[in-house]
């Protein structure tokens, strides 16, 4: 929290600093640029702005003087005010009061009218640089010449010109009165009247030339003198100011760049939640900002005018600083919010236009999608037809348009293919396969989504089944595990009890029952664990190459005595050559063990057991056939279920798990296990893959 605070404070400080340096840099740059020549050419005061300003003022005075002098030349009777003004100007422009040097001449003849140069001095050699300017002087210009007017004489094909004289009377002129018209400055060009102000005798017109410059060196104590002194004073600071300007500008840019980088980002790099300001729609914000800036600039215009006219004052400084700070604030905040939006990726989305487009697009989409598919296809086709028609008008667009149409069709095809492949994947058992629906057309995406959901549902149910199967297996293992411990005690104590001297024959027979049943219980728990392990596939299998005949012989060796006990005769049918198969010897022994003990338990006494081994194309097959003691009225499939036994009374020993275990173990070894019942004939076939020999 503290870190965040400090970061926020740093950000605010950077913002304010950027604003300050920006505004300061702006004005400093403006100033330095206005002093550009001074700074770089070293031309000094004469080419400085302040000097130019004074020269301008002096030139205005000279202009006025020239006008008054011309008036005087035309008509000696100048008005009192004009006379006073004339003498004032002559006084002000006297060579003893100003360094400004000038001469007024007639522009046509070049004759000197007035000058403040010393007798015989040449302007060029006494000033720093000469400026020449023409000064037209008009007298009686207040006659309303604009009230002269033409009349079109349609019949005689020429203009009539009515000239207004000074006393207000009119005079009619025709093209024939050329000399009279010339007096008023008009000439007929055969079509209309041309006017030349200089020839109009109603006006007095003179074209004067003024040449001027500032004396070099400065000798008189006037405004130029003061300006030059000021200039030399502050010219010393100019380079430092220039450096300061550069520093201000650079730091402003640097701060702006920094701020732009951090704004809208969390300290840890992720995008930060946007402030309320950053959430204002961008276009609205830009308009608002521009409007405020415009207002500020318009408000600032009189201030700049005043600055130009009167120079700097405290009020102006404050005013300009406020306005420029305002503008700077607007621009900087706009810049920062732009970057914040870019960083959070909301630049376009957070605009009114975008929202409008969004809403319209949504509405159109909804409207379009609510139609039946056929309707949409027809609409699309009609749009396509219309497009074809329109593009046919401009031949060059046809390939482009048809190309786009083809591209859209190809996209549809590709997406459809993607869906088909996805469906094949799901059908092929890869139920967790997900079709990528990005960028798909709405209808296809919907279909793909349904397929994905289907796959998800299937995989979920499969997973659930596997989980429950595994859970059940674990449960069986744990339960039987917990059964074993008390069972151990029971077996042991029954055994101990049997060793006690008990005279009662009845008690002895009870003990026998207990012994039998505990043994049975022991066998049951063992089978239970084995069955659960075999059926869940949690047993490790190590397939090896082994001889099926050999194995069956070994197994028969284990069972011989028991078969003899039950008067069962074994008839074997082996091939001469050993049948080499790929199986886990231990597991396969368990399979055959279970099958043979099944025979031992359920075969009718005195019958024959048929054991056969045959070699088939890719498998070695072992078959056991026996005659059941009990009637087998159970379908073979049910016999394979756990805990199902041929005798429904369940009086014989056995857990009912034997066949189930045998099948599971066979399947674990990639073999097949099948049962057939034909009357009392019970037949088991076990097929295992042959080893490559």
């Amino acid at each position, binding site marked *: 929290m503290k870190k965040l605070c400090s970061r926020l404070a740093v950000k605010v400080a950077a913002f304010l600093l950027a604003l300050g340096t920006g505004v300061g840099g702006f004005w400093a740059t403006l100033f330095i640029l206005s002093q550009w020549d001074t700074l770089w050419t070293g031309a000094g005061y004469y080419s400085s702005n302040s000097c130019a300003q004074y020269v301008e003022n002096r030139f205005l005075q000279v202009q006025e003087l020239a006008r008054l002098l011309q008036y005087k030349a035309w008509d000696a009777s100048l008005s009192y005010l004009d006379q006073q003004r004339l003498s004032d100007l002559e006084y002000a422009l006297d060579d003893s009061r100003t360094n400004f040097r000038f001469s007024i001449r007639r522009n046509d003849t070049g004759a000197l009218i007035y000058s403040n140069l010393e007798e015989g001095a040449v302007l060029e050699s006494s000033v720093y640089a000469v400026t020449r300017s023409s000064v037209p002087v008009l007298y009686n210009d207040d006659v309303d010449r604009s009230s002269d007017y033409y009349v079109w004489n349609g019949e005689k094909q020429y203009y009539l010109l009515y000239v207004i004289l000074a006393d207000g009377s009119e005079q009619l002129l025709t093209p024939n009165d050329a000399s009279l018209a010339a007096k008023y400055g008009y000439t007929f060009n055969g079509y209309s009247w041309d006017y030349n102000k200089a020839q109009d005798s109603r006006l007095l017109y003179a074209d004067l030339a003024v040449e001027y410059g500032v004396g070099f060196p400065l000798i008189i104590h006037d405004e130029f003198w003061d300006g030059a002194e000021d200039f030399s004073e502050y010219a010393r600071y100019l380079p430092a100011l220039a450096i300061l300007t550069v520093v201000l500008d650079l730091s402003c840019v640097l701060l702006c760049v920094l701020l732009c980088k951090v704004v809208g980002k969390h300290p840890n790099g992720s995008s930060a939640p946007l402030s309320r300001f950053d959430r204002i729609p961008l276009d609205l914000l830009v308009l608002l900002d521009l409007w405020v800036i415009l207002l500020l600039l318009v408000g600032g215009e009189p201030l700049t005018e005043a600055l130009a006219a009167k120079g700097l004052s405290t009020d102006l400084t404050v005013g300009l600083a406020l306005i420029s700070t305002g503008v700077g604030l607007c621009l900087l905040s706009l810049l920062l919010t732009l970057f914040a939006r870019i960083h959070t990726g909301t630049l376009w989305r957070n605009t009114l236009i975008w929202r409008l487009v969004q809403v319209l697009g949504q509405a159109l989409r909804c409207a379009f999608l609510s139609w039946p598919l056929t309707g949409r296809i027809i609409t699309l086709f009609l749009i396509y037809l219309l497009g074809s028609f329109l593009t046919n008008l401009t031949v060059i667009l046809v390939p482009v348009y048809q190309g786009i149409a083809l591209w859209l069709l190809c996209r549809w095809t590709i997406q459809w293919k993607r869906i088909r492949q996805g469906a094949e994947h799901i059908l092929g058992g890869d139920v967790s396969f997900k079709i990528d629906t990005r960028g798909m057309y709405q209808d296809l995406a919907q279909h793909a989504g349904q397929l994905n959901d289907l796959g998800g549902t299937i995989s979920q149910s499969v997973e659930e089944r596997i989980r429950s199967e595994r859970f059940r297996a674990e449960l069986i293992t744990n339960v039987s*595990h917990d059964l*074993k*411990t*008390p*069972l*151990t*005690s*029971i*077996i*042991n*104590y029954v*055994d*101990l009890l049997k060793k006690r001297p008990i005279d009662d024959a009845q008690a002895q027979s009870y003990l026998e029952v207990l012994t039998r049943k*505990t043994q049975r219980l*022991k066998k049951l*728990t*063992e089978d239970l*664990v084995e069955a659960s392990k075999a059926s869940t596939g949690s047993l*490790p299998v190590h397939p*090896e190459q*082994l*001889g*099926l005949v*050999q*194995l069956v*012989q*070994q*197994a*028969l*060796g*284990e069972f*011989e*005595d028991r078969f003899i006990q039950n008067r069962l005769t074994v008839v074997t049918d*082996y091939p001469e050559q050993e049948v080499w*198969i790929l*199986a886990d*010897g*231990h597991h*396969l*022994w368990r399979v055959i063990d279970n099958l043979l003990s099944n025979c031992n338990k359920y075969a009718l006494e005195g019958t024959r057991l048929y054991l056969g081994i045959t070699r088939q194309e890719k498998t070695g097959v072992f078959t056991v056939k026996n005659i059941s003691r009990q009637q087998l009225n159970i379908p073979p499939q049910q016999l394979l279920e756990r805990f199902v036994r041929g005798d429904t009374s369940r009086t014989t020993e056995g857990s009912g798990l034997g066949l189930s275990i045998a099948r599971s173990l066979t399947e674990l070894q990639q073999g097949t296990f099948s049962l057939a019942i034909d009357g009392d004939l019970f037949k088991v076939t076990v097929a295992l893959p042959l080893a490559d020999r």
Partner: protein
Amino acid sequence: MYTILICDDDRDIVSALDIYLTSEDYQTVKAYDGLEALKAVEEQPVDLILMDIMMPGLDGIRATARLREHCNVPIILLTAKSEDADKVLGLNIGADDYITKPFNPIEVLARVRSQLRRYTSLGGKSGSEDNTLTNGGICLDDSAKTVTVDGEPVSLTPLEYNILLLLLKNPGRVFSTSQIYELVWNDPSLGSESTVAVHIRHLREKIEIDPANPQYIKVVWGLGYKMEKI
């Protein structure tokens, strides 16, 4: 008089074993978890340990590992786990034998006797004579034609004796039934191999403690039989 440590968290099993063992004139010490077993072994010398695997606190596997750090008394694991991996782990960690629950008291006594004989007579009377073949507790004296298992004489038929001799001479080698038939009967085997299997089963019943889980004559299913080197 041997002292046997019985360690199981089920008190009934401990006392049952106690009864059996004392009736066979063994002294017993009882412990109900791994830590108690370790303490008991420190307090007095024992000659054999019967240890359950699943116990609270310190389990049998860990206790065995601890015990093996400093003593070599025979340890027989009693386990309700019948997974092969558990048995292998138990034997690797230093146990000498294992008995799966629920066990038969006679089997327990036989294994205890076997382990004790081997422990006490270790290196005592190894066959110095040329005609004596031994493997684990089996001792076959070919000149006297006698066989003893853990010191107890066993009577075998001539065929059984010859099969045992063949296997003892080649410990670890797998013989198929036809090979055994040809070598022992000295006849070509013509489909009478199951006779061999029957004889071997009888032989196992005579020399093995638990014929269904043979210690010496192992059945290599689908290949033949072999004498496990001990």
